[in-house]
């Protein structure tokens, strides 16, 4: 049997990874997953293949956290958008997913 939960996804510059993770943890998430990628948006395109001559701060990371509580997920999304995306690159969105082992996602 599955349960409803909300996944919040953030695609952003690696330089703010730690700050995003902090917001996610403060909102009560039991975990998160980080994938490294590349991307193009309003700012310069970054590719993952070229050597990181200017450091890896400009790499793109995709951070996903599933929260049992939808309000908490929305809070993460709002906080990231309002405090970090004013100057740094990134997008944030929510999805409804169906989880197994519900207790795993509540703290």
């Amino acid at each position, binding site marked *: 049997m599955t349960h409803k939960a909300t996944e919040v996804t953030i695609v952003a510059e690696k330089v703010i990874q730690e700050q995003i993770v902090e917001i996610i943890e403060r909102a009560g998430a039991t975990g998160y997953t980080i994938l490294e990628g590349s991307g193009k948006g309003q700012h310069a395109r970054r590719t993952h293949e070229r050597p990181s001559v200017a450091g*890896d701060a400009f790499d793109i990371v995709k951070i996903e956290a599933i929260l049992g509580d939808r309000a908490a997920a929305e809070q993460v999304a709002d906080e990231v958008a309002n405090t970090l995306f004013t100057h740094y690159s990134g997008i944030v969105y929510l999805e409804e997913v169906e989880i197994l082992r519900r207790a795993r996602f509540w703290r």
Partner: protein
Amino acid sequence: MEALADFALTFVGQLQKPTLAFLLGGMLIAALGSKLVIPDAVYRFIVFMLLMRIGLAGGMEIRNAEPGDIFLPALIAVAVGCLIVILGRAVLPRLPGVKVEDGIATAGLFGAVSASTLAAAMVVLDEEGVVYEAWVPALYPFMDIPALVLAIVFAGIHQQRQSGAHKRVRIWPIVADSLRGSALSALLLGLLLGLFTRPESVFDSFYDPLFKGLLSVLMLIMGIEAYARLAELRRVAHWFALYAFVAPLVHGLLAFGLGTLAHYATGLSPGGVILLAVIASSNSDISGPPTLRAAIPAANPSAYIGSSTSIGTPMAIAVGIPLYLSLGHWVFGL
């Protein structure tokens, strides 16, 4: 006139040497659309190897150096790092279309130091038979950190003025963050190991013999990246490109002048003066950009990275190094 002719000769001579040749070769193949990529892991390992080599050599030599000899050059390094940023802060934001934050961050990056440029200069001097104190390259952080800190402080002050809010810029975290970066960590660890242990066996069998060859690969990478980032530069005000052309040489000459004083005052070698000029001339690639991105979020990275990687670094290596070398010929009769 004679000096100019000497520079021209030196420059043409350097074009034939691997350092410059690989840099220009990288720019060339990137311009022709080559898909050659040196993997990131290799790039990072090369930078580690070069900085460890520089640190070890410096540490082993500091053992026998007079602390007094080092003091004045170190002071000059700090002074030049700060002067560059003050100058850039004064000039850049006045130029039309240049945002204050972008100007400050760019000045900070040009005040900071590039390990690859430094290593390139060391190889050139070695090939020319010009000797220098092995601790001079280790002055790197004395110019790098003050420049980054000052730029971040300027940005903080500017932002306060804008927003009215009073928020003090804390300096120590910036310094600590710089020291912890991968580049300075490797350099300082090498320095410590050179100073307090006996790394001669690995230095002689590994770090030193690979230095020149690895540098040629790094030059190729820097050349490819220089071309690749020109596109970014095109999206920002043209003044950044102009600054990136002129500033490395101005900074190098400034340091060359102050270094010459140290030559007469405390006996800094001509090779040391040249290296000091190169350090000033260089602009940070690896460690500077992430520090600035984190600390001055309002600044557009395309402005400072574009101008530094695409124009500043090639200028410092291709024009700066031969220039200070021929100045050395001229001033010190090398």
